[in-house]
């Protein structure tokens, strides 16, 4: 795409196509195009359309930013989302990210359902020297979470990251199970879980909005982890979620290794979305 182009009807169409092809969706695309036209009118005939649109995207993301929650002791991060999005891998990466900052971390293997889920998280724990609290397969997920919280509190651990089973948001019983995990954590420690991160796969289409809505309704999502951004998918639905729900993107996963993980950068995201 060529920077510095004039804002005319054909360019507007082209930019609309770019946004829709990036999974931004109709509503947020219409909003951004309207904002772009408004900005273009203010700037005048020499407006650099591409730069203006990037600014609109960044502005939208800034509106969704929130001050991070106050540090809990331990600080409990609950990781949730639909099946296969990269939760367990992201738990491993987030743990390493905190450990790199000199913090003490513990993992709770609260996915007691899926085959070899506990083994998978234990391997990530081994790789970063992070202890994993686990129960038995098919045990009660909430019990594992609260046992881990007890252990973390006893050891004055800085961060407890709770990995949960993937679940589709239209499954009432599974969402109830998640609500119970959150509720028992809160009962055990006021303020917990301090963060609830919804892990969203960048290849996800408009269904991502449903996911964000339902997981927020059930578990009080505080932010997103956007994964698999190293593929060709742009993750535009995360922008739609930022716009319609004011949920911030907290981290980005861009690979299958422990270090393929960064705090979210709005400028970078806008550039790759429109590039």
């Amino acid at each position, binding site marked *: 795409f060529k920077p510095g182009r004039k804002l005319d009807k054909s360019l507007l169409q082209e930019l609309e196509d770019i946004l*829709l092809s990036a999974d931004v969706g109709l509503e947020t695309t219409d909003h951004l195009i309207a904002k772009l036209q408004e900005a273009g009118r203010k700037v005048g005939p020499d407006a650099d359309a591409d730069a203006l649109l990037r600014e609109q995207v960044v502005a939208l993301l800034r509106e969704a930013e929130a001050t991070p929650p106050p540090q809990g002791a331990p600080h409990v991060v609950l990781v949730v989302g639909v*099946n*296969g999005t990269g939760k367990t891998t992201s738990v491993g990466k987030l743990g390493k990210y905190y450990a790199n900052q000199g913090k003490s971390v513990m993992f709770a293997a609260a996915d007691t359902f899926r085959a070899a889920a506990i083994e998978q998280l234990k391997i990530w724990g081994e790789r970063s020297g992070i202890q994993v609290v686990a129960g038995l397969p098919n045990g009660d997920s909430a019990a594992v979470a609260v046992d881990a919280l007890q252990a973390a509190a006893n050891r004055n651990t800085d961060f407890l990251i709770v990995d949960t089973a993937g679940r*589709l948001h239209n499954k009432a019983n599974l969402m109830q199970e998640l609500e119970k995990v959150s509720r028992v954590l809160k009962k055990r420690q006021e303020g917990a879980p301090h963060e609830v991160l919804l892990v969203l796969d960048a290849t996800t289409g408009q269904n991502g909005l449903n996911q964000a809505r339902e997981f927020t309704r059930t578990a009080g999502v505080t932010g997103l982890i956007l994964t698999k951004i190293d593929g*060709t998918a*742009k993750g*535009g*639905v995360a922008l739609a979620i930022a716009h319609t729900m004011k949920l911030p993107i907290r981290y980005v996963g861009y690979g*299958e290794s422990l270090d393929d993980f960064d705090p979210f950068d709005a400028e970078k995201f806008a550039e790759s979305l429109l590039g």
Partner: protein
Amino acid sequence: DLTSKLDRVFRNLRGVGKISESNIRDAMADVRRALLEADVNLQVSRDFLARVEEKALGQEVMKSLQPAQLFVKIVHDELVALLGEKEARMGTAKKPPTVIMVVGLQGSGKTTFCAKLARHFKAKGRRPLLIAADLQRPAAQDQLQVLGESIGVNVFRGESKNPVEVCEAGLRHARKISLDPVILDTAGRLHVDDELMNELDRVRKGTEPAEILFVADGMTGQDAVNSAKAFFERLSFSGVVLTKMDGDTRGGAALSIRAVTDVPIKFMSVGEKLDQLEPFHPDRVAGRILG
């Protein structure tokens, strides 16, 4: 839903006189909106709408007493025709065992599907072998082994650190003890990872599969065409599996993938349990896409 939206489009002019081309255009805009909301790829939607417009303008919609219903029928029928035949057949090897290679992006549901497919064959009296060829994801082989044990199907875990060699060794093992079909669970990978795409090519050359299935997440958005096209160009896969269709995704990826590869969708995975596997029903998916 779409029918009631279109009802409104056409109802407004029923008393006024005959339906004009501009009314059809309004109806088309509603269909376009429905397709995009359903995650059908933008270009695929455009091509589809062009075909529908041609049919709608050439047909009796303009003279019909129930234009909305007829228009929706045209859209629905065109969608069903494009989504393809019901129950497409699986390939079989001339000389057993039949090898079925399962591929796709990370987290799409391949390992779970391999076990479902094994269960499906076992129920038909076959003796399948699952090969744990994902050597990269932590505990992937354990995952397949646990699933295999739950349905009494053998899972082959190789000695080699090379997935190609594991598949070849597993195939020799299947021949030795007459297991058939052989289902290869491969590691998830990005279509833009050349090294890993080359690895799949070597797996294919080493095992000569009668069937290569591309497993795609039913909630995939616009990017569905990119991964499907790239995997197809490399492997010429012969079937598509859509997973997590027990969710509330509209499933537009089904149309996108079919449109750019022309490969039949053979199965739909509709749950985490191993018995939750269905053959593909184009009429059901068409209704879902249209909302």
